[in-house]
């Protein structure tokens, strides 16, 4: 309490000067905030534009008529179908071999686990053309694995199988990482309860762990599919033919120039965008 003899005046001045300082501080804070936010907004906006402008320009610059025309071109449609199909096959193989590994990594402890996790992410850092060459060293007809597959009539050089393994190699980390994350989120006690209620390990996996991680696994599959679809470097080393869409874009560009490459590039971008939107929706629902 302020003693009474100072009277109301001194109290008022005291209050107002206090208020002034408080307001000053608030203004200053607001200003620094505006500066801070503003600068970050400009920097962030630049990179955003860098991504949006080329994609948008390409989509809107090409007339629908040309796009539809391109879709009538059997060379283009078959390359697109081949791309989608090969990426799908790679995803199926990735699912069958990757999900069990993801489960083991998420649910068990063993020496060398970190090393394995590192190895899985290796394809993400290897230049993809180098990855293609590395694959040839194993799946080429002169090498052991290649010979083994040759025995059952599967060849990798310039074939669908080659496209699939190239896509598999570069895109499977996405599926494994996403599935692992999904399994990690499953409370181990749910699995324990299921076991005590009479479920075998198999049925616990099928009825509890897998359904609960399903969204993450689905997201991983879509991500893997999309990534496989957009692969160029590794595929072109192993299988220039049959031609997948990214390779076709490259070839059209090399032989006929920009105008001929553009329509098929636009179609590819539209397909990727569609897959991407579906993926985001799925992830959004999972977060909720």
């Amino acid at each position, binding site marked *: 309490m302020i003693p009474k003899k100072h009277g109301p005046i001194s109290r008022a001045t005291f209050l107002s000067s206090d208020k002034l300082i408080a307001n000053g501080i608030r203004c200053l804070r607001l200003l620094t905030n505006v500066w801070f936010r503003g600068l970050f907004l400009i920097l962030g906006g630049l990179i955003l534009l860098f991504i949006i402008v080329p994609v948008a320009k390409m989509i809107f610059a090409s007339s629908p008529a040309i796009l539809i025309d391109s879709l009538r071109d059997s060379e283009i449609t078959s390359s697109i179908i081949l791309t989608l199909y090969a990426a799908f096959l790679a995803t199926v193989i990735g699912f069958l071999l990757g999900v069990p590994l993801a489960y083991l990594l998420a649910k068990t402890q063993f020496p060398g686990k970190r090393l394995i996790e590192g190895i899985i992410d290796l394809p993400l850092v290897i230049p993809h053309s180098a990855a293609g060459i590395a694959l040839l060293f194993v799946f080429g007809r002169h090498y052991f694995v290649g010979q083994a597959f040759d025995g059952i009539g599967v060849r990798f050089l310039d074939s669908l199988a080659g496209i699939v393994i190239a896509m598999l190699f570069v895109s499977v980390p996405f599926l494994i990482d996403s599935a692992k994350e999904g399994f990690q989120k499953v*409370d181990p*006690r*749910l699995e*324990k*309860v*299921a*076991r*005590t*209620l*009479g*479920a*075998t390990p198999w*049925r616990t996996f099928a*009825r*509890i762990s897998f*359904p*609960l991680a399903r969204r993450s696994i689905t997201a991983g599959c879509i991500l893997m599919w999309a990534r496989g679809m957009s692969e160029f470097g590794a595929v072109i080393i192993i299988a220039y033919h049959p031609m997948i869409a990214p390779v076709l874009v490259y070839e059209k560009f090399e032989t006929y120039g920009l105008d001929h490459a553009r329509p098929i590039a636009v179609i590819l971008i539209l397909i990727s965008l569609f897959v991407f939107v579906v993926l985001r929706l799925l992830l959004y629902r999972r977060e909720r």
Partner: protein
Amino acid sequence: MISIRNLYVELGDFTLKDASLDVKDGEYMVVVGPSGAGKTVLLESIAGLYSPERGEIRLRGRDVTRLSPERRHVSIVYQDHALFPHLCVRDNILFGLRMRKIDEKECSEAFSRVVELFSIRSLLDRDPQTLSGGEQQKVALARALCVSPDVLLLDEPLSSLDPKTREEIEAELHHLHRELDVTTLHVTHNFEEAVALGDRIAVIGEGEVKQVGTPEDIFRKPNSEFVAEFAMSRNLFIGELSNTGIGQCDFQSGDLHFSVDSGNGPGNRAVIRPEDVMLVSRDAIPSRTNTFTGEIVRIADRGSTLYIDVSVPSVITALVTRHTYREMELKTGMRVSVCFDASSVHVFQE
């Protein structure tokens, strides 16, 4: 019924050391101990979720030590209930019956029975996430009991509930146990919960079973400092016992010495429960044995009761009701007398 012999489980930094425990048929046994004492490991070992390094677990005389969990007929209910979030209440409860491939008729009978027992018919189509804590608890219990387990394991079933629901479920558990007569092993860190529910209590600490007995035993006759402290026996004295004849002994602890019933065996520790210590004003000194005068050094308020530390100069703690506290106008620094019966002292060897 449950017979555990020298169970030794190593789990990361934690070890359960040669734990032995017997639970009788139809008994409600509460395993109580501080966090990290190994209670959950013990429970999960019985359920078969950990395999022990050594030791033996028998259920109904059958050695199940190496049996997988799905073949033990032991149900477990966890603190956070662990309901399957992707299944509705009905499918949660039916899960065990479906896994055990029980025929349709038997299945629906067992299902109806637990649904009636817990009065949860109105919840059947709900998602577990939309249930209150108490409702989740009921569903978890229904799911566990639906398969008619030989043993029910409860891991801190009341810890995550608010006090009111907690009392409700506590009563429910009590009622349930009388109704179904299923052998139950309940673990908790809450001593009061243990006393309220247990036919017998096992105190566990540092990976060992410290003492097993009736609540009264654990309360009055702790066999170690660990148990005495865990049962909040506050007055623990280190000293020695000497025989003075005529049915009484003398316990000497530093400057303090008091009479003890000669029924007590040899020992170097004495405990007196604070509720057995009587607090009287100094001018009304009763002519009894074991009366000491001193100064109040600390008052710990617990709401309806208070712990009063009196320095005589060894500190003796008395439990008083709020009524006494107000009536005697107790405050720190006040001089008072404390007294207790020779029969209230329990002596043990540490």
